[in-house]
């Protein structure tokens, strides 16, 4: 990599590095803002100009996970001293944690919404990727009558914005009782992601030399065994890349989740901003919810980063 570079090239190189840094800063700024707000005391969250240096608190997260109500008057010293440390942070903010008659803390709606998001995103990703891989394998390896037309048809399902069909989908779902169910959202997200998954996986599988399967066949395996023992491991990179994209789409989906669910199967995206409406907007709690919501995607992408990098340049190098 030590090719000779002219002065012009050095300058251009420095300029592009600067440009990348600037773009990186712009991209990271909102994430920094959300993270900072998630740890701010409530009164510092909305100051103008924004507070940059502050003493981080955990209270937004305590509030995120509990049901609270406004305090009309400050708690008595006795109550305050008896409260555990995390409850004190809520008292300090002028609120109190709602407890049942037997003194149990009432959780907020967030944990169950978060769990719903996980269930729906993971299941629909697994479904979309596995169905997409098998479909792509079929298109890649066998002569399918009208192959190009089928592939175009599959792609065309992505051509209009999904929200366009939101109302009819809502009516259909209500008729068959899929409203506010996990299954309903899983079917919806799988359908969204499937076309994308087929196309992406077809690209990856096309790149796997057919000879590997031919070799497995003459080695005495059936085509199905060859698929599982050879094609799947070889396509791991593509599967990882496709899974990340599908997971992100399903995880972040907002519009349909808002329309189709309201309680039992509601995912985190429509829930987090819904807290704006209850009492005065508490931006620190919204930021805390968003912050936690970012983590699974970040972790998932981080774990698959090597596959992703290979996936992006897949097929660019011929051995």
């Amino acid at each position: 990599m030590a090719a000779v570079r002219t002065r012009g090239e050095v300058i251009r190189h420095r300029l592009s590095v600067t440009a990348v840094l600037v773009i990186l800063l712009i991209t990271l700024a909102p994430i920094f803002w959300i993270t900072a707000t998630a740890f701010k005391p409530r009164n510092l969250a909305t100051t103008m100009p924004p507070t940059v240096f502050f003493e981080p608190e955990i209270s937004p997260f305590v509030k995120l996970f509990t049901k609270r109500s406004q305090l009309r008057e400050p708690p008595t010293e006795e109550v305050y001293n008896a409260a555990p440390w995390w409850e004190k942070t809520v008292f300090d903010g002028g609120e109190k944690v709602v407890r049942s008659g037997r003194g149990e803390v009432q959780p907020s709606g967030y944990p169950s919404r978060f769990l719903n998001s996980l269930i729906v995103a993971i299941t629909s990703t697994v479904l979309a990727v596995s169905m997409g891989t098998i479909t792509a394998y079929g298109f890649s390896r066998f002569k399918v009558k009208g192959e190009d037309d089928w592939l175009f048809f599959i792609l065309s399902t992505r051509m209009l914005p999904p929200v366009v069909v939101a109302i009819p989908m809502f009516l259909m779902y209500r008729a068959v009782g899929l409203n506010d169910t996990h299954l309903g959202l899983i079917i919806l997200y799988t359908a969204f992601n499937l076309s994308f998954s087929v196309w992406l996986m077809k690209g990856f599988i096309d790149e796997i030399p057919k000879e590997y399967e031919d070799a497995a066949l003459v080695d005495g395996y059936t085509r199905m065994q060859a698929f599982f023992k050879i094609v799947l491991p070889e396509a791991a990179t593509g599967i990882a890349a496709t899974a990340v994209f599908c997971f992100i789409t399903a995880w972040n989906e907002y519009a349909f989740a808002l329309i189709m669910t309201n309680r039992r199967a509601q995912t985190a995206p429509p829930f987090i901003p819904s807290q704006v409406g209850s009492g005065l907007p508490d931006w620190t709690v919204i930021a805390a919810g968003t912050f936690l919501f970012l983590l699974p995607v970040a972790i998932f992408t981080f774990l698959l980063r090597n596959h992703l990098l290979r996936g992006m340049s897949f097929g660019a190098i011929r051995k």
Partner: protein
Amino acid sequence: MTQIALHNINKHFGAFHVINNVSLTVEDTEFVVFLGQSGCGKTTTLRAIAGLETIDSGEILIGGKPVQDTRVEERDVAFVFQNFALYPHLTVFENMAFPLRAVRTPKAQVETTVRRVADVLQIGGLLNRRPSALSGGDLQRVAIGRALVRNPKAMLMDEPIGSLDAKLREEMRVELKRLHVEQGSTTIYVTHDQIEAMALADRIVVMHAGVLQQVGAPEDVYANPVNLFVAQFVGSPVMNVADVTLAEDAGGARVTVAGATQGFAFPSALLGQVAATGPANRPLTLGVRPEAVRLTLQPAPGAVATEAHIIEPLGSHDIVDFRIGDATLRARTKAGFVPGPGVPVWVTLDHSRAHLFDTATGQTLGIRL
């Protein structure tokens, strides 16, 4: 004990007739090489024998049993691919053990078999490596090892050393020959390299445009090509060919290259033999290998005068280009025999190694002098 027999095999890719009525019997332990240009149907024929391609009509028998309708995995043949097709995600050991695992071989036996074959191929030290960490020659050894572990009924090889560099190819050629002598498995080998074919084959099968042209021992195919295609495809440098006319001349025969003023003197028996195959005045093509062309630096009786044009020194011998009439011919001479381009030379032909072909059909007249 595996004989492979093909009876009237046909296959089309759309309108393209890839395999045109091919019939052939490969005897047990025989090493047969399919030789032809790319696209001549040799690889398709090999894949059809393995079961990787279906055929439109005809019969394929392996060990006497028709297999044209059986699946690949039931035919029990091994296939070595041009690009080796080693599984990149498996180690060398696992690659070689892969066929054994298909038939659920006990673990201990897998271990011993793979190690034994690896030792034969001298890759015992590489068993824990991934294919990506191997050199071309070692990749090829592993690919062959994967084919050998199972004791298959037949070994089918599709240009197995075609992607190696020239020097390695020569080494591997010898190794393949040695392996075949030791293992004695029925082998069909596909190549477009006629030197490889000559060096390896018990019998060569020359294919062109889906049709078998000639089947025979390498020396036989080299010495007695049945048509112009085989004549020009087998041998390096290629056989000289030139359109000629035949005439009687002073009690002998005279073969004159088109556009030339002088002709080569041939025994008069030639005229009779040509007449026996058809009209003597039909267009004929003369074929003569460079080593059957003799050059002298002095005039000789019956020799055609010309001058050397290009000289290729190849170390052990030279190849000298010269023009006679409309044709450019080449002769093989001792190294340094012709001192330089432009030197006058006199050309005679070795009659016993000259071939005459019918220009219209390309078939040999089968003349022996």
